[in-house]
């Protein structure tokens, strides 16, 4: 398949692996930020091709994983209201709240629909004027433009029975939170290609400068990731700390200006709690005052949920690159994808789930 096969080419992968071997003289720890990259690394066995001196640790870039528990609780509560049609991306349905998940609500009669685009939820609202249609708007900057467009269209078409439960998160504040941690061991980053396709990479330049870390905007296919790691290690070996773009077929420095304009029209920056990490200032998006009437939390008066994570879960340390899944005593024993204890086991893109699916060997 064009635009996929060439980035999964074994010869190209081998060339980058050999080039990395040649330039690596010291131990380096690099974090890939995005869950999609983590998934590719483990699925294709990319880390097996790297020199032993290069360690990849997995970042907080799985939107399903970092959605806070109390928001899942709110989603479950709204989805259980009889007149509500609750629309969500598919992989949010299995994320456990403290006692159940959205799939269980569906099984008990909740009207829950998987949609592929938030605009489908607006369409459902237009088709069902006597129902309240709520879209679960999660994700990083990648999904923000489409979610913003849904609110924009609903507003233009005066679709009053549409609202959104918003839990948007932003990448740069999460990178800064990791770099500011006393336990940080990350020396270079692979930034998430699709986030940068929307936002560009200008906002990463001050981070590279302040914390003296190379940041390479990287794609998701095996050859992309190997090239991204190569570019990052080359900077580290040469003592540089710059923002470079591996994913040049998709990402421009300034990003997608029209998408950014739409995001700013609908959303503003808010503090956001991250599952497994805690609250990070200015790390999320919430609806602008002008569009507050589309906020499902306001519309349904849902607030004040608090939920506790199991104490044995170390997903916070994993999301910050401090530990790897295999270092957790609960991994694969009391914590499995069927009964996840925490953030990184709940979604297929979470680091623990990826290791469980692709790396677990039987004893």
């Amino acid at each position: 398949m064009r635009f996929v096969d060439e980035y999964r080419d074994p010869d190209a992968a081998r060339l980058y692996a050999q080039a990395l071997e040649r330039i690596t003289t010291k131990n380096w720890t690099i974090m890939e930020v995005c869950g999609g990259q983590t998934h590719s690394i483990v699925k294709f066995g990319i880390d097996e091709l790297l020199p032993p001196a290069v360690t990849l640790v997995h970042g907080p870039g799985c939107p399903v994983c970092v959605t806070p528990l109390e928001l899942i609780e709110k989603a479950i509560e709204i989805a259980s209201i009889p007149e509500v049609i609750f629309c969500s991306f598919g992989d949010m349905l299995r994320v456990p709240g403290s006692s159940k998940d959205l799939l269980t609500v569906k099984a008990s009669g909740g009207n829950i629909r998987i949609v592929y685009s938030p605009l489908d939820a607006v369409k459902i609202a237009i088709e069902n004027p006597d129902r309240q249609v709520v879209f679960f708007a999660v994700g990083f900057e990648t999904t923000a433009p489409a979610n913003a467009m849904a609110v924009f269209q609903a507003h233009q078409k005066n679709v009053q029975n549409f609202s959104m439960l918003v839990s948007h998160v932003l990448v740069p504040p999460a990178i800064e939170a990791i770099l500011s941690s006393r336990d940080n061991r990350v020396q270079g980053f692979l930034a998430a290609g699709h986030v940068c396709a929307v936002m560009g990479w200008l906002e990463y330049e001050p981070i590279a400068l302040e914390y003296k870390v190379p940041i390479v905007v990287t794609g998701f296919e095996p050859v992309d990731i190997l090239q991204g790691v190569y570019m990052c290690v080359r900077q580290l070996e040469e003592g540089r700390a710059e923002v470079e773009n591996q994913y040049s077929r998709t990402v421009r420095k300034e990003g997608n200006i029209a998408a950014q304009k739409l995001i700013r029209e609908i959303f503003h920056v808010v503090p956001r709690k991250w599952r497994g990490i805690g609250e990070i200032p200015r790390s999320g998006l919430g609806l602008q005052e002008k569009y507050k009437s589309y906020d499902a939390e306001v519309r349904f008066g849902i607030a004040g949920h608090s939920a506790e994570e199991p104490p044995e879960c170390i997903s916070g340390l994993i999301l910050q690159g401090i530990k790897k899944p295999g270092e957790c005593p609960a991994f694969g024993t009391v914590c499995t994808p069927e009964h996840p204890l925490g953030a990184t086991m709940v979604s297929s893109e979470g680091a623990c789930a990826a290791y469980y699916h692709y790396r677990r060997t039987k004893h």
Partner: protein
Amino acid sequence: MDSESKIQGEFVCPVPIERYATVLLAHGGGGKLTHQLIEQLFLPAFGNSLLEERHDGAILNVDSGRIAFTTDSYIIHPLFFPGGDIGSLSINGTVNDLAMCGARPLYLSAGFILEEGLPMDTLRRVVQSMKLAAENAGVRLVTGDTKVVDRGKGDGIFINTAGIGLIESGCHISPANVRPGDRILLSGDIGRHGIAIMAVREGLEFESTIMSDCAALSDIVLSLLATGVEVHCLRDLTRGGLASALIEIAETSSLHFEIHEAEIPVQEDVKGACEILGFDPLYVANEGRFVSFVPANDAERALQRMRAHPLGNQARIIGTVKSDNPGLVTMQSRIGGTRVVDMLSGEQLPRIC
């Protein structure tokens, strides 16, 4: 003869079935309407001497030997999809289960659970499709049953079919017979059925229509067995896809299967749909594909025989059976890395981004 049956038909059925545009509760009540359904829809479609005896059950003459017996229920939404429908699926699925035992499928039963209000035309189309699928697979439908449930308590049509087949060769096909060193053969490209259904169900539009691979596998399997190749195990790929089929056999046989991603054919449009939806084709449903386990020295001969059949022209040797890591399936990725192929925790769900 024609005029006789016409007269008889008129006598039995003063109100022709055509008068009923939809299925009524009474069509499952055992009275006149049930009889009309049998006389005017099922018998003309499936008519054979055994069915026409209209006994409580069919009395079958089978040659001495081993018999394979299986049953499966079919619920699918939508009832009609590119490349098949619930009718062809209900015949082929059960035929395939028999074929995987190395049996020649002979007789099927069919149990219909219809929802009140189902358009009679829909039922007619499904029955017609079953008739064609049965003829194609060389099986006879010899006994059946119909029930009707209240509107809202079914999904149009549910069908159960059970089947009997005769094992003619001396083969012993079972997961327990898989041996270290065996080669794993896959009969063709994977993932088409699941994506075809998904596309219709979710209203996804692709440039081309993806057709289900729904087909009866008995002919290709019997032709493989006829070569004298020592087939150790067969398994058709259904709901859980290639991955689940292999994991089940690996666990039952306590052996390790090592497969190669580059050898597994996936049609371009299926690959594209999977990329968009975030699905792994290894876990997507199939209805006309199977894997076979044969000794290494028979593998090439088995491959050639499978490729000579229209349903196996894309057959490939995709892997090898090993004795280390019992119960594990591993896959070598295109770029040379290795990963475990694990059983899915639930249904595959489309990803956020």
